[in-house]
């Protein structure tokens, strides 16, 4: 099973949202990282076949996805960035409705809905209307609907937005279990989610794919380039303008800085292990 993105370009009224994207996706978890406006959502919409690219094509097992039509949508699960669900539907009814649209037979749909309500921890509130759901609960219903047809390709746009830490950990567990035979693409701003579960990180900047690497390889690129130092408050301005700062932590009158730099920024700076956030900052520091 493979999903091939071949030379995708997408243009909105003279503005290039995506430019010459090429990638080959096989089963595994792909984390899509990039600042706002980098083109992440546009790329995901093209992969879901909701919009057509201005140029290029997306192939699923060497067949164009638009030509596959409903055959492609049969193996697809998608959670968009903005999702809330029909306000007057209960959680259970909404999932049954989507299951019907996905072509699941009634009995199978009923069982699958109960199973997924358990998985996302909403079984107790299945009779509650979606208009009474919190942001995190809506997100979990969104994740459940994407999993209804046990998709081969799962595309999640900001799945962890609004989820509390325990829910995020639970979702990471679910996705890790699913990733064996599926292509999972998730876009998120929460860098740690990608650090923990992604097999490959796709970095998108100004509509271009600037890197596609395993997290360990990306981290390796920054080994010996991340520094930790304690400075006085009045030194902060100097360090901020001279170096890429990945974290600032006020400790009384002192400030702890985490700096990404190829050279030692100060004789007192200690070399530390790089994290995914350092990678993000080093690639997108001016965004």
């Amino acid at each position: 099973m493979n999903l091939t993105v071949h030379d995708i370009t997408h243009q909105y009224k003279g503005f290039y949202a995506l430019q010459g994207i090429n990638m080959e996706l096989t089963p595994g978890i792909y984390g899509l990282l990039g600042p706002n406006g980098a083109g992440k959502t546009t790329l995901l919409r093209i992969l879901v076949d909701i919009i057509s690219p201005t140029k290029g094509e997306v192939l699923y097992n060497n067949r164009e996805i638009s030509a596959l039509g409903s055959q492609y949508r049969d193996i697809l699960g998608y959670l968009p960035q903005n999702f809330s669900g029909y306000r007057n539907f209960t959680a259970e009814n909404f999932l049954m409705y989507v299951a019907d649209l996905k072509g699941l037979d009634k009995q199978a749909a009923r069982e699958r809905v109960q199973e997924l309500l358990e998985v996302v921890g909403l079984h107790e509130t299945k009779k509650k209307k979606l208009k009474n759901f919190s942001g995190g609960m809506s997100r979990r219903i969104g994740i459940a609907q994407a999993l209804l047809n046990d998709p081969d390709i799962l595309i999640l746009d900001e799945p962890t937005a609004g989820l509390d830490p325990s829910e995020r950990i639970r979702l990471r567990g679910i996705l890790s279990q699913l990733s064996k035979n599926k292509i999972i693409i998730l876009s998120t701003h929460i860098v740690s989610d990608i650090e923990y579960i992604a097999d490959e990180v796709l970095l998108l900047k100004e509509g271009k794919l600037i890197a596609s690497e395993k997290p360990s390889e990306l981290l390796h690129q920054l080994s010996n380039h991340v520094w930790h130092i304690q400075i006085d408050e009045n030194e902060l301005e100097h360090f901020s303008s001279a170096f890429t700062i990945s974290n600032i932590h006020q400790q009384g009158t002192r400030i702890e800085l985490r700096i990404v730099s190829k050279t030692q920024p100060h004789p007192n700076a200690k070399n530390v292990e790089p994290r995914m956030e350092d990678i993000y900052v080093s690639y997108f520091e001016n965004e």
Partner: protein
Amino acid sequence: MLLWEIRKIIGNRWNLAFILCVVSLWGATLYLSGQAGSYQIYNRTLSFWHVLGSLSVGFFILFISTRIFISDKEDQVKEVILATRYGKGSLLLTRMLAVITCSSICIATLTIIQVFGFILFIPNETDMVSLPLHLSRALLFALIGGTLFSIFAACVCLLFNSQTATVIVCGFLFGMTYMLRSDLLQSYSLLWLLDKGFFSYLIRAKGVVMELEWPFLLSWYGCLLFLLISATIKIQARRHEL
């Protein structure tokens, strides 16, 4: 799928208020007519579709049933729906069927209210032999008009992707017939077309008689719907929603 869509329309919170409003207005109309004698009640019942019935059908179609074409966008589920097996062409067709079915249910409900009001207010001695014939004829025209107007409003809603725009455009075209005096209009003129060309004329039923203009009117309805459906299919395909 059809049942889900019908359920969405029937479950609209405005339905109860809508029915209560029609019942109250119809009850008040019959009560006031009854002051002038049972003959007035009989006449008023025959003209039920002329104002109250037809306006109620128009309101139901524009404010309640066409909402299913816009609720995906409002409730932020459109992208989820479009990514499902039946979320494109099949769903559109199902929703068309749902609005037609619901407009027929609405017309049937209004007929029940019409007849029930008549039975409640009319004295026993009134001659009711010709009433069923009149009512069935009116019901038939209302059903045809309701179906055609449902398709028309659904297409306009899909084209504009906005219920407000649909209410303004379709409301204007549907409402013109109440403002124009049919008998003073020259056949085939623009005002004549506004009076009879947008389905409210059919739903009003009372004024519908076999006229010389019928072949033209039928061709007009056919062309109008054909063009509108073709435009909808083209636009939906361009939006990648078919």
